[in-house]
């Protein structure tokens, strides 16, 4: 039988079998389209609190699903799959899978804040979008953004040395984001700097590049700092 409501079936729920026998009956060929059920069988009761712990998500529990956010949304006008009202509902009930399905568009929120201004319950949907994007990044559902990678490289160096070395941060960042070290702006920067013959700066630069100096009496400060940050994160996100 033909599938009448094909629009209701997400492609990943369509299971194809070239050859399949069920209970001794051959259901290959025309009959081989199997569909996994779309029934929701549980809520994740802790999910809402998890999103509320991320800055921006605090007011998500206030939503009563009027749809003002989606109606006013800049991104919804471009793509009807971008539906803040729906994701907020999914957060409230803990329908995590529903949000993960849209992982490639949730982050596209442009923070125009029309939703925030129109929301009658002061949910701050824009904040929820940001919180969701952060949650997905933290859980590894989406790739780390370049700015997160930069922050990590920066922080790592602070932990170890109590200071950063510009060239090391840049090198680490470009390496981890798979970009070339030979950026045009770096070349121009280097050429113009060379015109001034900065002998002293050059010596310092070369020494720091090789010696990787630490801040005086940094000692175990980095470890303590690292532990403090970890504890704060755990306290906020559980």
């Amino acid at each position, binding site marked *: 039988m033909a599938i009448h409501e094909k629009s209701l079936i997400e492609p990943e729920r369509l299971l194809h079998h070239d050859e399949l026998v069920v209970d001794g009956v051959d259901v290959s060929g025309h009959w081989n389209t199997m569909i996994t059920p*779309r*029934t*929701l069988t*549980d809520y994740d*009761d802790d999910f*809402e609190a998890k999103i509320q712990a991320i800055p921006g998500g605090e007011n998500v529990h206030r939503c009563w*699903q009027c749809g003002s956010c989606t109606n006013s949304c800049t991104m919804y006008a471009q793509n009807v799959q971008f539906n803040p009202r729906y994701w907020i509902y*999914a957060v409230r009930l803990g*329908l995590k899978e529903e949000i993960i399905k849209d992982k490639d568009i949730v982050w596209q929120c442009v923070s125009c804040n029309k939703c925030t201004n129109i929301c009658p319950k002061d949910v701050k949907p824009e904040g929820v979008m940001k919180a969701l994007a952060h949650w997905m990044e933290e859980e590894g559902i989406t790739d780390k953004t370049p700015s997160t990678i930069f922050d990590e490289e920066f922080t790592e160096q602070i932990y170890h040395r109590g200071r950063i070395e510009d060239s090391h941060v840049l090198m680490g960042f470009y390496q981890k984001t798979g970009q070339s070290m030979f950026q045009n702006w770096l070349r121009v920067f280097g050429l113009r700097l060379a015109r001034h013959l900065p002998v002293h700066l050059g010596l310092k630069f070369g020494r720091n590049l090789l010696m990787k100096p630490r801040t005086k009496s940094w000692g175990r400060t980095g470890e303590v700092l690292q532990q403090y940050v970890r504890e704060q994160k755990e306290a906020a996100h559980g």
Partner: protein
Amino acid sequence: MQDTVLIVGSGPSGLSAAAQVAGAGYKVVMVEKEETLGGAPILSGYAKLVPSGEWAKDAIGRMVKRVEDDKAVTIHKGTRVTQLEGEPGNFTAKLSNNKQIKAGAVVLATGFTHFDSVNKPEWGFGTYPDVLTSTQMEQMVASGKIACPSDGRVPERVAILLCVGSRDRQIGREWCSKICCTVSANLAIEIKEMSPETDVFIYYMDIRTFGLYEDRFYWKSQEEFKTKFVKARIAEVTASGDGRLLVKGEDTLVKRPIVIPFDMVVHAIGMDPNQDNPEISKVFGVELEKHGFLQKGEQYTNTCGTSRPGVYSCGAAYGPETIDDSIAQGAAAGGRAVMDLAALVRKAG
């Protein structure tokens, strides 16, 4: 006889009408079919009332005491009116205790009957012990402990189903019972207060917490007590096999079927016409409107009227009503009866 008003029913509206009539210097004969005064809030053991937050037995208890202490009020408990003859200013009522009452006016404060959830068998009431009605849940709150009736465990999740016995053509109930949304939001708050580890979900078609109930109950339950509102009319409540209940339906906001496990399910039952209304209609000679509640008289100049002159009504006898408004209408009906009696005396000169 023109100094006496017969009041039938002793719920919030009847008690209010009695106090109004007695306060105006007239006599009251109050007839109550049950052995206890106070009506539904007392007989069904309501917990804290909406919107005052006072315990029913305290608030309604004060109304009962005020009437019982009034020398101008004669009370017949466990009694029904079996016959009413006469006209405004001159009624004669026969009671089931064989007494005869002369009265100038009659106030029917005969209220409503709670919807019987057995009439919606697909929602599991009467089949599973952990499916309760909102009146039973009120009693559980009043008892001070939230626990599953089946085995006494603290429920992790409670579902409240709205519109049970309301807004349902299948069972001939085409009205909104008006107060269940607010009462359910209030129940959700009470459950969370008493049992913080319990999550409460309210399954709704619309939320009708009208007027000032909006933020005081709906918003408060959602924002302060984390009640979750799910837009779905439940199709069926079944057992899961591991001692829990399965709530089946369609979540209309995600456009998908749901089968969600719960520990307790509460029916927010609606207000039916008083099951005695056919008899009341016959005995008092008053008409019923199409749903079976008492037919209102013309509202603008015959306030609190019925289809029979000299017979007045108030509160949930007319249709689903809140306790506060029933009390206000009771006072209005008492005032109306007294006003008409005074007019008759003046006319007679």
